[in-house]
């Protein structure tokens, strides 16, 4: 029975191949767009998660809390409450903490001979490479003595090295940051593209003490990077740090913290949520084309019903019931949209696989999620039912006499 209905609708569709193809194209593009867009979104999420995983799960950040002024949150680091003493107290009094690196930052124009470059200046502690799991490409990182004496030394990110020095060995050279001369003592290994948020290799690390005294004239730290002894101790470290800082900042029980301790998992979660929104946005834009494809099906089915009024009349005179005619046209619409859906899935998968061969999109990572493939297929089927129903019903309600007389 089902097979027979299928055969009848396939035959009807094959009678006008070009039109069938064009109608299907709407669904193909719609489903293809949804799948490839969502695969880009999912790819972005996977890339973010991967990067956070690489940074280590024992990483914690302390920053000034979000400050609220007349209902407007300033964002993390908005309040200036963290001091160098806080940082020292954390490493001394929190047993679960293994290493810290106080952090301040600014942006500045950097000059080497005739070249200049605008980049981010990170003031860090001497344990920065350990805390952030960052390796040194050449030279060394500055040590505790350099931090204590606020030495004018710096370590370059890979991008900065490339832009200022090209092939010259930068070690021992002097660069000027805000007109202050710094000696380059090392270069960091490249960490690569960070996926849309700018390169992490585009930065220069200097001792935080130097940054605060010579570059920023700052009294407070913007954040403290902390690594717990092990991943399992992260939660404990967080508790110890919170208790310590509340005590040091004299925060009464029940009041809000004036700082924020985040672990990597939380931050990763936040970033993943952002990419989820991106995925949803891309998916919904693509869904619009799917909707347009559905309307195309309805349009063509209406034309097809009008063209085949005579055929409908013949079928009715031979004993087709309303239901038979309804099913026949509905089946055509569903076949149209399901086949379109299958081709669309092939197209979407193909596009997301081929994207990396196009130079402009080479860095975009795509992940095809089977959920979305199944969903897209189901949606295309529903589109057939939804947009095919009205024309099919119209066909089934025709008066057999009028239909037979129709020229």
């Amino acid at each position, binding site marked *: *029975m089902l097979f*027979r209905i299928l055969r*009848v609708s396939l*035959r009807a569709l094959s*009678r006008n191949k070009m039109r069938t193809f064009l109608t299907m194209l709407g669904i193909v593009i719609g489903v293809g767009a949804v799948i490839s867009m969502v695969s880009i979104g999912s790819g972005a999420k996977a890339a973010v998660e991967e990067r956070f995983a690489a940074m280590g799960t024992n990483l914690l950040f302390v920053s000034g809390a979000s400050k609220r002024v007349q209902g407007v949150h300033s964002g993390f680091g908005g309040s200036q409450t963290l001091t160098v003493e806080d940082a020292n107290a954390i490493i001394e009094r929190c047993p679960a903490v293994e290493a810290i690196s106080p952090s301040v930052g600014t942006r500045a124009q950097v000059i080497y001979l005739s070249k200049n470059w605008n980049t981010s200046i990170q003031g860090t502690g001497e344990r920065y490479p350990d805390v952030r799991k960052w390796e040194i490409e050449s030279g060394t990182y500055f040590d505790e003595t350099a931090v204590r004496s606020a030495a004018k030394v710096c370590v370059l990110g890979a991008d900065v090295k490339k832009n200022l020095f090209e092939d010259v060995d930068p070690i021992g050279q002097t660069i000027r940051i805000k007109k202050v001369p710094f000696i380059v003592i090392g270069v960091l290994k490249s960490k690569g593209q960070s996926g849309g948020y700018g390169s992490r290799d585009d930065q220069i690390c200097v001792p935080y003490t130097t940054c605060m005294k010579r570059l920023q004239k700052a009294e407070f730290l913007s954040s403290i990077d902390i690594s717990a002894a092990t991943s399992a101790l992260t939660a404990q470290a967080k508790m110890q740090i919170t208790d310590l800082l509340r005590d040091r900042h004299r925060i009464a029980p029940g009041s809000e913290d004036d700082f924020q301790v985040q672990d990597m998992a939380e931050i990763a979660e936040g970033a993943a949520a952002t990419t989820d929104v991106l995925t949803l946005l891309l998916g919904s834009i693509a869904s619009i084309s799917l909707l347009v494809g559905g309307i195309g099906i309805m349009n063509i089915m209406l034309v097809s019903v009008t063209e085949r009024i*005579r*055929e409908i*009349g*013949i*079928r*009715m*005179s*031979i*004993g*087709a*019931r*309303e*239901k*038979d005619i309804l099913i026949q046209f509905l089946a055509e619409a569903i076949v149209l949209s399901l086949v379109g859906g299958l081709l669309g899935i092939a197209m979407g998968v193909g596009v997301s696989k081929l994207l990396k061969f196009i130079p402009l999109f080479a860095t975009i990572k795509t992940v095809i999620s089977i959920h979305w493939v199944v969903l897209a297929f189901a949606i295309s089927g529903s589109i057939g039912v939804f947009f095919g129903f009205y024309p099919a019903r119209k066909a089934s309600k025709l008066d*057999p*006499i009028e239909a*037979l007389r129709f020229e």
Partner: protein
Amino acid sequence: MDNVLIQLVNLTKTYHIGETEVRALRGVSYTIKSGDFLAIMGPSGSGKSTMMNIIGCLDKPDSGQYLFEGAEVSKMDKNELARMRNKKIGFVFQSFNLLSRTTALENAELPLVYSNVPGKEQTQRALAALESVGLKGRAHHKTNQLSGGEQQRVAIARALLNNPALILADEPTGNLDSKTSEEILTIFRNLNQDKGITIVMVTHEADIGAQAKKRIFMRDGQIIREDGN
């Protein structure tokens, strides 16, 4: 062969076309017996097409009774009417009304598609019907590759497929030349004589009508004369 197949009692039918009323049937009563070969004749607008549509279960009368094998067709719903058309009646039209770009076999099979007959049996029965109208070798030709006479024979094969009690032919020779018309009428005569199938044929051509066993003449929605031999 004297049992009653169809009984029409005081049928009326009025069409409304815009403001104007067309009284297509004004109280028609007639009895068709099983095995009859009846021609309904009359000029256009005489009500013969309306009569045909009602007998063919395509339309319902406004008032009056229509009994087919004792069952009251005038009270049936749409699905029951469709079933009547499928099981009891075979249609043959002036313009053949075959599905275009479809083979003779597929056209002939069509009534069985709507009566849940298995695919294999469908094909067998359709082939047998095509053979009985002399189209054995043409089963897989598309309808547009067939001549008018051949197309009408496909239509007859299709009408025969569910072994109907009645074949309704609406100007069956209207689009055919006289030689082909004669062939088609011979098929009808044979079906009527050999298989005892009742045939009702609408025509306005006197020489075609003369070949039926009985005739009724219609004018202004009424039967004005009947004869039979």
